[in-house]
Structures are given as C-alpha cells and as structure tokens.
C-alpha cells in the first residue's frame, strides 16, 4: 500500500480510537457514578487513546519512508555480481539510479542488459513486499496501541496532563520545523558563499568597484576573468530604495495621519482597505507599469527639459516601488497612531492645543517608534524587491548616484546570475549566493532594529 493511503488508514484508526476511548471512559464513568468520578474528562481519555494508537504507527511510517528506499536498493545492488560497478565511487549510486529508472519504466527495458532488468524486477518485488509489510506492521502497532490504551482507562488514569503535554510537543515540533528550515536556508547560502569566497576574496567582493560577472566557460576564451566587486550593486540598490522611500514615507505617513486622526469614520472604513489593495497588486504588474509607462514617460519628460534620462532609470523603478510600499507604511503607522491613548489627545486638547498641534506635538512623537519601525520594515522590503527593478531599472552595473541613470541592484543580479543554464560551481553562480547572503544580513539587521524599536514602543504604554 502506498504511504499516503497508509496514512489515511491510520487516520481512520485514530478517529476510531478516539471514539473507543471516549466511549470506554463514559462507560466507566457511568459505573463509577458520573464523569465527576474520573480524573480526566472522557474527551481527554479519547484523545489519549487516539494518541497511543496513532503516534507509534506514524513514527514507524516516518522511519520506513526515510530508510526503506536505501535498504532496498542496497539489497538489490548487493545481489549483483561485483563487476557491475563502473569502478569510480559514484558508480554504485549511478547504477542504483539506473535500476530505479528501469523499475519505474522511465528507461525502456528493451535495450538494457538483462542483468539490470532482472535487478529492476527484484527492486519492484522488494518494494511491494516492504509496502505490504509496513502496512501490516503499522496497522498492528496502532491496534495494539488502541487496545492497550483502552485497557488502561480507569477513573484514576491521568489523561489530561498527558494530552496537554502532547499538545506542547506537537507545537514545539512545528516551531522547530520553521526554525530549522530557516537555518537550513541560511546555512546552505552561507556554505555556497564560502565556496565563492575561495575563488574571489571577500575584500574584493565587498569593496570592489567593478561588477562584471562574465567568466569564461573554456580556459582559452577571451575576457575570462570576471570581476566581482559588489559596490555598484549596493549603490544601485541604495539609490532605488532611496527614491522609493522619498515617495513612500511622506505619502504613507500623511495618509496614515489623515486616516487615523482626521478622516470621518465612514471615509476611513473605505479608504483604509482601498489603500491596502495596493499591497495586494502583484509586483510583476508594478514592474511592467514601471517599465512600459513610467520609464518612457520620464524619458520623454526629461527630453522635453533637456535632461538625458535613461530609458531604464533608477527613478522610474524607485517611483513605482515607492507606490508599492505606501500601504506598508500607511497601514503600520495608522495602527500605531490609533494605538496612542485617547487620554493623551484629551490632555493636549484640554491644554488649549488645536487638533493639528496635538497631532504634531503629542500623537506623532508618541507613535514615532512604531512609525520608524514601519519605515524600517518598508526599507527592507524595498531592498529585497526584485520584479520592479528587473523590469525597470536595467542591468548595467553603473557606479552612479544619479537617479536618471540606469542602475542595477543586488536582487536583479541574483536573478540574472541564476537564470539560464549555469554551472553549479562557477564563481558566477556562486556569486549569487554571496549576494544573497549580504542582502539577507542587511534586511536581518534592519528587521532586528525595527522589532527592537517596536518593543520599546509597546513598553511605553504597559
């Protein structure tokens, strides 16, 4: 039986176990004179029975999923005459893959050596056996668990703390999955970056002023040495983000203040969601808006005034990115502004301050940490944004602070480094990981600062 079906079967057992356990507990309670006589409520006994029924079987299933493939293919390979291995260390693995492919019918059986075909059939047979045996075993384990747990149900059985503990473990397990995934990603990026730094010195990467990651595929090709100075990319990122923030911070903040302080309730009820819709627009839509509408418009406008504006400019990308970020800032700021206690406003108004004086001198300062945190989050969002810049700001790694020029950003370069056919271990590919690492560190630091600031804000009104 396939693992998925087996899982469904186990689920059915578990559900049954719950009812059996609860029924048993109810029965015992009736004999003992009502469910007050039980240490734990019948439901807890049901959950306990279900746990005893399901948990060992699921563990068994997991172990089987992890190990059965390896064990079976090792058995099949061992049954082959030794001469079949191609000599090099990877040979065994290659052969195992080949056999597996034949077994699954990916490779046609017709023109394969008979011995491999036989091995493939052996593989299929063993797999079948192993599936059925794990089905039988898991069913047995869960039934035994069910019966054992049912037999243990007495008025004294302390099911409640056990179920409670199991909930804790389950939650802990989920939290671990999330944390380990994050660490897994970090470590893989870190590892690949270290590999990159073996061929390109860290200092060259961080302080180098020239970025042209073209490496030769063959040794005798011209222009074979790429240069991996990331400064132009970071300057480009900074430039685009700065333009974006110049747009987003004032507009976002002002609209937040308007919504939180001045807008009538009915206006707010519509305007706030409308603004948040901006955050829901896919970035690719913003991207082509930037590339096809804003950039040409800026170029034409520039021409009219005698500026030379590149048709892919940091300005175009930054402007559109700024619009995209407005809801982040306005929504977060709106929340912190409305969280400022009314008593502070009353206090200020009662001093004879006007509404705007109150907003400027009391409400905004009180909300400032939260607003700053919102801006920080928006900045890290801007730095990590890819689609808009890919489409609208260009690929040329110009070292410039002129927003009318075309620039490229870290994220754009990561995209271009990794799209298309690439060697996995060339510095060109690995450079993407190094860029990713630096980007990650920057946004991490920004987010940590933002969270710290938000925390301080919270404490202020404890």
């Amino acid at each position: 039986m396939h693992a998925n079906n087996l899982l469904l079967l186990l689920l059915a057992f578990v559900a049954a176990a719950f009812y059996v356990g609860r029924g048993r507990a109810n029965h015992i309670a009736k004999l003992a004179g009502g469910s007050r006589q039980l240490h734990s409520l019948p439901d807890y006994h049901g959950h306990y029975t279900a746990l005893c029924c399901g948990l060992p079987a699921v563990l068994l299933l997991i172990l089987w999923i992890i190990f059965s493939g390896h064990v079976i293919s090792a058995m099949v390979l061992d049954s082959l005459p030794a001469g079949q291995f191609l000599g090099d260390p990877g040979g065994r693995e290659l052969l195992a893959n080949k056999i597996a492919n034949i077994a699954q019918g990916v490779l046609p059986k017709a023109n394969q050596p008979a011995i491999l075909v036989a091995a493939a059939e052996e593989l299929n047979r063993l797999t079948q056996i192993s599936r059925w045996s794990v089905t039988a075993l898991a069913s047995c384990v869960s039934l035994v668990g069910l019966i054992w747990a049912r037999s243990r149900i007495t008025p004294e059985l302390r099911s409640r703390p056990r179920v409670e503990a199991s909930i804790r473990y389950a939650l802990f397990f989920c939290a671990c999955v999330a944390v380990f995934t994050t660490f897994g990603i970090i470590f893989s990026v870190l590892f690949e970056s270290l590999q990159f730094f073996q061929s390109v010195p860290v200092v060259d990467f961080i302080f180098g002023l020239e970025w042209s990651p073209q490496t030769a595929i063959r040794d005798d090709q011209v222009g074979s040495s790429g240069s991996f100075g990331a400064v132009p990319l970071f300057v480009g990122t900074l430039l685009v983000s700065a333009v974006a923030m110049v747009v987003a911070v004032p507009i976002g903040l002002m609209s937040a203040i308007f919504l939180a302080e001045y807008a009538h309730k009915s206006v707010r009820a519509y305007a706030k969601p409308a603004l948040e819709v901006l955050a829901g627009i896919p970035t690719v839509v913003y991207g082509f808006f930037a590339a096809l509408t804003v950039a040409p418009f800026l170029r034409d406008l520039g021409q009219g005034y005698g500026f030379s504006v590149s048709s892919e400019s940091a300005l175009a990308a930054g402007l559109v990115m700024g619009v995209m970020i407005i809801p982040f800032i306005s929504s977060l700021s709106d929340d912190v502004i409305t969280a400022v206690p009314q008593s502070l406003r009353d206090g200020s108004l009662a001093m004879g301050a006007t509404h705007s004086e109150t907003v400027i001198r009391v409400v905004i300062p009180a909300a400032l940490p939260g607003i700053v945190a919102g801006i920080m989050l928006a900045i890290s969002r801007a730095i990590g944004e890819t689609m808009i810049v890919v489409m609208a700001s260009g690929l040329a790694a110009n070292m410039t602070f002129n927003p009318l020029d075309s620039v490229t950003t870290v994220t754009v370069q990561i995209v271009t480094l990794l799209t298309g056919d690439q060697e996995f271990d060339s510095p060109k590919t690995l450079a993407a990981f190094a860029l990713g690492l630096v980007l990650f560190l920057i946004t991490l630091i920004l987010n940590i600062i933002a969270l710290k600031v938000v925390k301080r804000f919270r404490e202020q009104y404890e």
Partner: protein
Amino acid sequence: MNTSATFGVGTPSESDFRDTRGGDMSEIGLTKGHVTVGSVEIQAAKMTARGVNIFYGDKQAIHDVTVDIGKNQVIAMIGPSGCGKSTFLRSLNRMNDTIDGCKIEGDIRIDGEDLYSPKLDVVELRARVGMVFQKPNPFPKSIYDNVAYGPKIHGLAETRVDLDEMVEKSLRRAGLWDEVKDRLFQAGTGLSGGQQQRLCIARAIAVSPEVILMDEPCSALDPIATARIEELIEELSHNFTIAIVTHNMQQAARVSQRTAYFHLGRLIEVNPTEQVFTNPEHSLTESYITGRFG
C-alpha cells in the same frame, strides 16, 4: 476626530438615563420637573451654568442643570456613577466638542462671556479653563517638556529663561519640584502614579488658567498620593477656581467649600459642603451620603 471609540465610557447602558424611570424616580423623591434645592447661585461666581441639557445622540445625559461656580473656591461634584458628573464637567471647557454626537443646550458663561457663542475661541477658553483627568496622562516626553507644553503652544514664554522659570514655578506649585528637579529631562511617564498626577496638575497650571477642572483626580492613586493631591488642591484654591468630581465623599468634605449632588443626570442639591454632609436638604442627597446607594 474619531473619539467615540476611544473615549473612556464605552456603550452607555440604556437604563442610565431613560426617562421611563419616572416611576421609581418619584418614588425616591425625584420628579420630572425637578428644581435643584439649596443655594444654586452665589455672590462671586466665576462660571455660571443656566438650564444646561447635554445629549449624546438621542440620549440625554444632563437635564436642566443650573449652578454657579464660585471664584477661588472648590466646588465638589458627587453622585453615583453614570449620573453625568464628568459630562457636566467637560462641558465647562468644551471638551465635549471632541465627542461625536454630543450636543449641548443652555447657557454657560465664564466671567459673563458665553462659552458656546460662535465668537469664542476654544483654544483660548481651554487656556483659561484647564483640566486634570482621572487617569494621569503625562505626554511621553520629558518632565520639563510636559510642563512647558502649554506655555509653548500659547507662546507665553519669550525666552528660554522665561520658560525655565515657568516650569519651575509650576512644578513648585504642584509640590513636585523637589522630587524631580534633578531629573527634569527624564521621561514624565517614568514617575509614580501620584507624581504623574501632580505633573499633570503642574502642566495644567503652567498656562495660568483661571479655572481648573478635575475629574476624579485621585481615583487611580494610593491613599498617600491622594493626601498629597488633596493638600495641593487646598493650596491651589487660594488662586484658582476649582471644580472637582469625586467618588470619595470624605474627599469632597475635606477639600471643597460647596458640594453639588448629581443624580440620574439632574442636579439635586447644591449647598455649602458642611451642610451637605451634616444636614442635607434633599432626601436623595441624604440617602447617598449615608451610603444607601452609590
């Protein structure tokens, strides 16, 4: 401004000011055309209220209140919760303006000037009639900036030295100077509850108001801090006109010269404090101060 959601009183309970209570109102001695007993008017009145009705939407919270507030005197307003003390107090510096749907009828004057006339500048009025709230609400700024807030927005100080002086004087009058003079530039929110409330009083008197309204200023404080504030009120009453709402009858007896008893949105009785607590004129007042309800 969106105040209704955040204003202290959430959804008022229906029965609080329903006139259908007429039945039991007459039972406890309150008739529809009730006239306040006692000495409503006094000689040296700083503020006067005549026939004031206040509504939240359709619900009437204050019915036909007429009372004088004596110059450089303390008037205490007492009564069961929800009887409209805060509502009436807030109408004296037009803080009710900030509440959506709050409507006021009648005539309130300060030194003969109509508070609700279109010519009156609310900003100026509130500089003349300051307010201290139930929960201490210092701004999240330094102690200095808290006190300097009023003088700054009203442009009362020409120079920094002036401002320093004003801050010191207000803090001294609020009896807080000695405790905070070494940490003027630390956050006002870091003070203890009682100190925060005195800071709020200092903040209110920094603009030299003529009247100070206090809405249960001690209800969030411990007895020692309360005693400090009561002393302070006594001192301030030599120079300021004070109207204080309180739940605590001993407090009313200690700090005030006159006491006004509110019940279900009506002003039942106004008399010299001593008389109210020893020999109340109205049976409802008597029931309240002897603890029959409240």
